[in-house]
């Protein structure tokens, strides 16, 4: 097992190398000059050129890459062109809302989708099954920002139960934190619920036709025990796989959801950095997202062993 984890961790290095080169080149080759953005609308070409020199953007692209990558290898991710802060500081400030949003979304998504997926499988062809499948199609089809605005209109504006937007840090006021997480998490979890419930239904349906389920029923076990202990556990591997792959959806969705709900997280930092061409920030945040994606999927791989003893690394 340790050997497997070590190998997977080592495999992260080339992945990050490719991501680093790709992101760096993509940013330099697409139009957009941070110096022009910084200088503002009334600046002249000379002023922009001066700022470009101060930021080192007039150096050849490979020199810029060599400087950046050697700094990154030393743990120095550089300073934001705009915020007058190191990128590490910026990320530290912005990580909490994203982490909170991702955690609440996962809790909502798994908490809702797995039971309804199991129910849909157990009652295949029933109204519940059709409702779950219908919701699943809807959840995939409707963009997150539309769902967000609908939830805001109903729960924040018409009913006034929850705030429209904003974020309060968990350490400042727990209840204000909680009430501000409900709508964004629900918004982001809709697509996730659609995905996981569909996979859960399919996996459980497949398992329910296995001989050992029939045997369990013949032994007189209750439906609950059959479903939870025998069916769901054996259907867990594909569900976990989908949750792992869904982390990419979660990251992409966080960008939109944080913008709609005014959450000052990494998703919004990414949007702000892209719009202002804040190269050091974009590069580091994308590297960070890559690490998160790879590590989460490693953890998912490891968790397979908990549900299926036949899997050994």
């Amino acid at each position, binding site marked *: 097992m340790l050997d497997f984890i070590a190998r997977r961790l080592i495999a992260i290095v080339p992945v990050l190398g490719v991501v680093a080169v790709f992101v760096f080149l993509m940013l330099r080759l697409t*139009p*957009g*000059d941070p110096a*022009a*953005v*910084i*200088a*503002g*609308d*009334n*600046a*002249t*070409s*000379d*002023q*922009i050129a*001066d*700022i470009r020199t*101060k930021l080192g953007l007039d150096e050849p692209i490979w020199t810029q890459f060599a400087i950046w990558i050697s700094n990154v290898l030393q743990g120095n991710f550089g300073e934001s062109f*705009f*915020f*007058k*802060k190191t990128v590490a500081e*910026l990320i530290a*400030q*912005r990580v909490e809302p994203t982490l909170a949003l991702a955690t609440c979304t996962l809790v909502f998504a798994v908490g809702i989708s797995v039971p309804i997926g199991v129910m849909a499988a157990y009652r295949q062809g029933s109204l519940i099954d059709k409702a779950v499948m219908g919701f699943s199609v809807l959840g995939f089809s409707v963009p997150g920002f539309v769902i967000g*605005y609908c939830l*805001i209109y109903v729960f*924040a*504006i018409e009913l*006034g139960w929850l*705030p*429209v*937007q*904003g*974020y309060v840090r968990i350490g*400042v*006021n*727990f*209840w*204000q934190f909680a009430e501000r997480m409900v709508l964004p998490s629900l918004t982001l979890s809709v697509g996730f619920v659609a995905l996981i419930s569909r996979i859960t239904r399919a996996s459980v349906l497949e398992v329910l036709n296995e001989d050992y389920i029939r045997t369990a029923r013949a032994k007189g076990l209750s439906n609950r025990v059959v479903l939870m202990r025998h069916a769901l556990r054996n259907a867990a591997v594909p569900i976990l796989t989908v949750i792992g792959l869904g982390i990419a959806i979660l990251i992409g969705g966080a960008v939109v959801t944080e*913008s*709609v*709900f*005014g959450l*000052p997280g990494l998703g*919004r*930092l990414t*949007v*702000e950095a892209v*719009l*202002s*061409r804040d190269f050091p920030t974009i590069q580091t945040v994308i590297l960070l997202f890559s690490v998160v994606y790879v590590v989460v999927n490693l953890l998912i791989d490891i968790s397979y062993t908990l549900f299926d003893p036949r899997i050994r690394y």
Partner: protein
Amino acid sequence: MRKVLKRTLAAMVAGAILSSAGPVLAQGKVVKFVQNGNLTILDPIWTTAYVTRNHGYFIYDTLFAADENNVVKPQMVDKHEVSADKTVWTFTLRDGLEWHDGKPVTSEDCIASIKRWGARDAMGQKLMDFVKEFKEVNPKTFQMVLKEPYGLVLDSLGKPSSQVPFMMPKRVADTDPFKQIDSQIGSGPFVYMNAESKPGEKHVYTKNAKYKPRAEPASGLAGGKVVKVDRVEIIEMPDPQQQVNAIAAGEIDVIEQPPHDLIPLLKKEKGVALYNWNPLGHQFIFRMNWLQPPFNNAKIREAALLSIRQEDYLKATVGEPEFYKVCTAAFICGTPNAVNAPGDLFVKPNFEKSKALLKEAGYDGTPIVLLQSTTLPVLTNMAPVTKALLEQGGFKVDMQSMDWQTVVTRRTNKGPVGQGGWNIFHTFSVAADILNPISTSYMVANGDKAWFGWPNDPEMEKLRDAYAKETDPVKNKELAAAVQARALQTAQYGWVGQWYGPGAMRSNISGWLKAPVPVMWNIEKK
């Protein structure tokens, strides 16, 4: 186990109630303000971004400031004198001016601040061209010695919009003008709370208890800057629809400038009032590239001007006539330098004359590259109108859509369109930035050093210099008219309408001053 769970829950509830009560009691009256964009850069000399200028007005003060009628009045200055030959200006600071760290504001701070601003701002650079030296007479008095009389000394030092000559402590103002400052110490009516401010989330300002406002009532950016709330929080909220939802729900108090298409929603909200805090408004322009064909030909530029109808732009971008004005004066209607353009120019297009000029100039039908910004709502509809009008005037137009930051980058390219260059783009200015030929960067015509489009017209530069040196307001008005006439003669650029963007505030907010900048002193919250 259940007991432990119950106790834990009880402790969480108690902690949550206590933590929610604490900050509210401590903060007093708080105004939550949403600006038109994120505040990322905190150095108002380093960038011309309006959100950064607004930040500057919170924490810094100015030597002079323009009142509601655009008359420049002393602000940090107690008295000022000018020598008989108009070359020596002596400024004496008011008593009791202090930086936020408690140190007194001195002459050397002000001299360093003027020098740093003068290195970056177009109007400051012009002023510095005339400055021979600064002399510190004593800690409260300093002199600006000019090489020759300059008519815009007070207008420059009281410049209301980007970049504003804010006064900073010498140790801060000595920073290279092309590097960001790393201190937020000013002497203004608010103190920036660095520890509480989180870029991307909020910026916090508290009342500067030591600030000594002028005795005169507040007017525009001048007069007594009396802070009537305990704290202002700039909330970073990028989504305009959410700004409207949040003010309707009472979560925020003031929106700087909601987009025009959301104004009908705000009008329906009972607890929200719209307020035109910037009565001068803004002006749209379009800029042509003098370096590349076809606009390197004056006749073809003139043809473009002849195809313009301001109202088409204003209807497409602003919509409601109460928020726009057809104005053919370059220096903003209703201000001293305003003179209407001759005939029907900009009001009624003359497509036949445009086509005739194009024929005469030998326009070969090569499509002109028009840059369309799609990310600034107020600019998005400008380019399609230009395309339609110019095509009626005989041009072929290749409209290329991109985000505003790409426009900002691409317009710096002086090369041919085939190498990433351009022919036309649009932008807009706060009217206060363009009230005379010196502050209006679009009027600069010194070739490579001019603003994008790089017009080269020595005659225009002579007129601008004459305006700068003239100290008689009547003659200045004549010179401003001559500058506008020259700009039309060479078709230097096109001004395509004046517009207004009201702010929105909760009905318990009052005292928002009329000025070119949204300022938070004088504001009350019931």
